């Protein structure tokens, strides 16, 4: 029985891995073609590869755009964790009625669709003079990443048994101490997962980043979109940038995997 289910799951993983890989491979292949080649009908898998797309990437000075994306995403992670974990913990342990309202309010912020917020957000950011700054994009992203972090951590804390906290408090620990020495070590995997999700959301977010920036604070998705325009559909260039964006991120993920496993062993020692 166990062997059959192993085989099934193994097969499923293989199929899914293929599903994930096909577009990525297509992207990678695309980055090695010339524009004309990329538009062949039907498409060719065997062709003369060229690095001209990557050359354009390197020549185009996209380093600072990547830097922007990393900075914005990084700040988002820091703030989401810094502000979100204490808030989530408080919400999780609070008495019932007050918590219900607050928690709900926190979540409902995330509900507004992007198009609804574009004009108000633009007017607001313009009003405080932050157009085309990293701060503007951080602020815009925080409206989504902070509630996300709070909500995820809160539901995780809900399931953490209170015995250890109780024991620590009886021993005279402050709430901050409990948070720092008990809760956070126990939440390793979840914190890493949340940090990852926040980073990724910020990294990928396109609409606000595009509307609120021009050249100084431009992010990677905005750059890609500006190149994949209707006027000059440069598929290889877009693919090259996407591939370049992927590589460091892929490495980061590989490390995060290890962190999750390590966090797991920590969590097992209760």
């Amino acid at each position: 029985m166990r062997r059959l289910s192993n085989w099934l799951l193994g097969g499923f993983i293989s199929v899914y891995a293929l599903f994930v890989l096909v577009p990525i491979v297509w992207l990678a292949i695309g980055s090695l073609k010339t524009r004309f080649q990329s538009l062949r009908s039907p498409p060719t898998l065997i062709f003369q590869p060229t690095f001209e797309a990557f050359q354009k990437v390197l020549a185009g000075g996209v380093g600072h755009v990547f830097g922007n994306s990393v900075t914005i995403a990084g700040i988002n992670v820091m703030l989401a964790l810094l502000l979100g974990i204490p808030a989530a913990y408080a919400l999780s342990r609070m008495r019932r009625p007050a918590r219900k309202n607050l928690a709900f309010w926190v979540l409902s912020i995330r509900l507004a669709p992007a198009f609804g917020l574009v004009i108000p957000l633009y007017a607001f950011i313009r009003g405080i003079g932050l157009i085309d700054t990293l701060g503007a994009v951080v602020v815009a992203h925080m409206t989504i990443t902070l509630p996300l972090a709070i909500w995820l951590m809160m539901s995780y804390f809900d399931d953490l048994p209170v015995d250890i906290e109780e024991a620590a408090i009886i021993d005279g620990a402050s709430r901050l101490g409990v948070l720092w020495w008990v809760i956070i070590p126990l939440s390793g995997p979840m914190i890493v997962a949340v940090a990852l999700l926040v980073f990724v959301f910020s990294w990928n977010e396109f609409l606000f980043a595009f509307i609120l920036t021009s050249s100084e604070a431009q992010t990677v998705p905005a750059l890609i979109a500006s190149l994949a325009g209707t006027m000059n559909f440069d598929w290889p260039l877009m693919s090259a940038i996407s591939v370049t964006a992927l590589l460091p991120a892929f490495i980061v993920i590989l490390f995060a995997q290890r962190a999750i496993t390590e966090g797991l062993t920590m969590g097992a020692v209760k």
Partner: protein
Amino acid sequence: MVSFARRSARFPGVFLAPAIITLAAIVLFPTAYLLYLSFRHWVVTRPEKYFSGLANYGLVLGSSTFWHSAATTAVFVAASCLVTLVLGLALAVALNRRFRGRGVIRALVVLPLLIPPVVAGFTWRFLLNREIGMLGSWILPSLGLNASMLADPNLAMVSIVIADVWSRTSFMFLILIAALQSIDMSLYEAARIDGASSRQEFTFITLPLLVPAIIVGLIFRAIEAVNVFDLIYVMTQGGPGTATQTLSLYGWRVAFTSFDIGRGAAIAVVMVIFAIIGTTLLSRRVLR
């Protein structure tokens, strides 16, 4: 227990205050402004701007295009959530066991998350293109599918669901696997001693303990799916015709092509209200 309750009342304000203040500061103004806009008549091409009460809401709720978009959104959200849940769950369970190369497979599974939806949309649009895409012009026709995935109204919906699933299953996977890994091992040991099969373990231990995480995941996925914009815009622009025009795209059109800002704002507010109702029903359990 009583002393604990009294102690738990003494949470330093600095725990919640920073988060609440930040959110209030950066969200309150835009949302208030959005609400304000929805009560005004403001069409960019017309000089008159005035307070119009619930007129915009009346126009929105009375418009058949709105309800058509709502139906399209419902189909998209349901399909996408269901598929990502099933796939995410299967992946979480499968990748919870130890095997060689697990780290690499996990990294691979998470990979689509790193690709901005804009790029994912372009890539899938390219792949499915009937004339120049590897899938659309080569593989699918050779399997017998001759219609264009993006030009046929029904297949276009399938296409965007596939792209969305590709892009967002990793999210569901991450939530579920974190929850899966925090399940106490001793429960399984006890069950095994009692002679439970792996399927029984799954049904009676794993699944019930995963329900909170599943609900959280579904809520977030659903909200995200309702608000999906970049992906669909880039793949089909809401087309062909209006076959994939979800509320997000419809609202965008009203605000930025018909230039009716007031009505666009009203659509956004209506969407939020729908979402609040939906998530309240779903999350009654979690907010226990």
